[in-house]
């Protein structure tokens, strides 16, 4: 009897999870479907769901008109670079906060997070002027630095919570055995926190990949990533939804595939230590 209730509840939970999952995925699915429609079908009322003449025309137009490879390459460098740089800076910071906390550690953590509460446009002009002075406008390195700084509080916070789960005694034992600080962080802490670091890495790649304020405002022709590629397909005078959807699908495809293959790591990292 008890078994029956459990399996019934299980089925209910599964159905609920699928429902929520589909709801969240629906806009992406709709974008992908729209990318195969003609412009007239894309905007037709009532909307058509599956029964339309599927066409690849939008993809061929987008391929012809834009240099997708260049935008993709810029996105990879900017998202990857900013995440790796962020991790390199955040690992020592999170180590010190987790294992040698001071009176102010909690305050610093909160203060770091508070920088995320400032609307980005509030610092657009100061950063723009700095970028002009430093010659960083429309460069990949400039965006790597800005996106790293923006995501750094999240990276530190995530790593801090993962490191907290690791017993300090293990590090202590390593120290007793004569490990230097560098060895301790590199050979003891980091391998133990790999799932946590991996999920931090993935989440921040996704955040940096999708970032659309700074990447649009600090680039022109050379360093523009896929967000600018998408923005170029909106039109004030002329139908554009199908081509925009094709461009969007091409822009999210790499990250969608990356997320698909790494979802096991992502989930295990996000729930790391939760069931202990």
């Amino acid at each position, binding site marked *: 009897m008890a078994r029956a209730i459990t399996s019934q509840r299980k089925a209910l939970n599964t159905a609920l999870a699928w429902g929520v999952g589909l709801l969240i995925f629906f806009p992406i699915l709709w974008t992908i479907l729209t990318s195969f429609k003609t*412009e*007239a079908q894309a*905007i*037709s*009322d009532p909307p058509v769901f599956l029964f339309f003449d599927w066409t690849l025309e939008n993809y061929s137009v987008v391929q012809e*008109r834009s240099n997708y490879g260049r935008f993709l390459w810029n996105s990879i460098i900017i998202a990857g670079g900013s995440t790796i740089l962020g991790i390199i800076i955040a690992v020592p910071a999170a180590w010190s906060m987790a294992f040698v906390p001071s009176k102010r550690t909690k305050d610093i953590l909160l203060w770091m997070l508070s920088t995320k509460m400032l609307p980005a446009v509030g610092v*657009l*002009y100061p950063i*723009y*002027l700095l*970028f*002009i002075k430093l010659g960083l*406008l*429309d460069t990949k390195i400039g965006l790597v630095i800005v996106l790293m700084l923006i995501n750094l509080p999240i990276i530190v916070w995530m790593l801090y919570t993962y490191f907290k789960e690791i017993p300090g005694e293990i590090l202590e034992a390593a120290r007793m055995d004569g490990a230097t600080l560098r060895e301790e962080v590199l050979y003891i802490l980091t391998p133990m926190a790999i799932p946590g670091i991996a999920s931090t890495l993935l989440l921040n790649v996704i955040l940096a990949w999708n970032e659309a304020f700074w990447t*649009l*405002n600090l680039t*022109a*022709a*050379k360093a*523009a990533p896929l967000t*600018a590629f998408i*923005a*170029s*397909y*909106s*039109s*004030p*005078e*002329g*139908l*554009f939804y199908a081509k925009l959807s094709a461009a969007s699908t091409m822009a999210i495809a790499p990250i969608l595939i990356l997320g698909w293959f790494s979802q096991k790591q992502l989930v295990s990292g996000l729930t790391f230590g939760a069931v202990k």
Partner: protein
Amino acid sequence: MFAKYALGAATAISLIAAGSASAETITIATVNNGDMIRMQGLTDDFTAKTGHDVEWVTLEENVLRQRVTTDITTKGGQFDIMTIGMYETPIWGKNGWLVPLDDLPAEYDADDILPAMRGGLSVDGTLYAAPFYGESSMIMYRTDLMEKAGLEMPDAPTWEFVAEAARAMTDKDNGIYGICLRGKAGWGENMAFLTATANAFGARWFDENWQAQFDQPEWKETLEFYVNLMNDAGPPGASNNGFNENLSLFQQGKCGMWIDATVAASFVTNPNDSTVADKVGFALAPDTGKGKRGNWLWAWALGIPAGTQKTDAAKEFIQWATSKEYIELVAAKEGWANVPPGARTSLYEDPNYKDVPFARMTLESILSADPTNPTVDPVPYVGIQFAAIPEFAGIAGQVGQEFAAALAGQQSVDEALAKAQALTTDEMEAAGY
């Protein structure tokens, strides 16, 4: 010996100078409209003629505006040419943000630019951006549905006739709506249409002392007329419809009439996209007998931001893209219906262009628009579907929300006007008017 060195050095310097002048790469910010896409495709012709390369940055219209404003105010120098409209050009020109285009060579024939366009893109007689293509607004209507309703569209109809025809053409059971008008909130969406229409009803945004006028009877008449007409003869969900949505409805044969940008004429008569391509007639935007028609004036123009290092190359590009030769180039490659319209007088004198069905009405619409004298009563601002002051975009964006809510039936016309009056008064006071 010294002379020889000096000569050598001078030659070297002049060679470097010549080298840098002949091989610039200019960056152009633009929007994704059909004529601009065509221009991008023809860039090779410019490069072949001048040696300059071009990098395109295409952005969404509002992103573009914000992006180039940031760059221009900080003198960032990221763009050598920007695509801007008739709203920004006089404001930016006055601020000294744009390079004056008053030294274009004689063969460019700047006098050939349509006077209305030239006036709207100039400050005190100095041109600050060259029109790439221009537009007014006009009525596009279905000749077959008009005939079926037993009516005949005059060249210059009144709003009374348009409303009567719209109601007569409406056949909701078959998904035919007599009139499709903009309803989507935005200063460049519903407010462009409603501001222009209000002019025909004798309304105005501000009086001579910059006092908001939404509490005046003319505005009430305009908005009530519009809401009632759309309720009776407009498509469902009209408060979400902007230019593109109405274009799609018209192309699918669901609209009897559509009053919008003249540039849409080439879309609705293109048999590849439009199911009603051979059944479209054109007429001037309607009036109410008060002497003003609700037809606007707009230009997508090319301007050079002050602060660019490549002014000469940028000017060469503007001369190329807005020249008579460019029009001929497009005509040769893509046909006369696809040339950028509404910028040059000579285009409308060209016998080849006279066969294009919408050419005459486009020209008449543009010629009858007068941005310096847009309303029945005098106003302190320039502009037909906007007031060319920096505050307008922000205020009209909010007023547009109120008017869209009135169209959607979420509030009454009186409520919408009262809110519009209050918020406009507040914003203008805060801005120091």
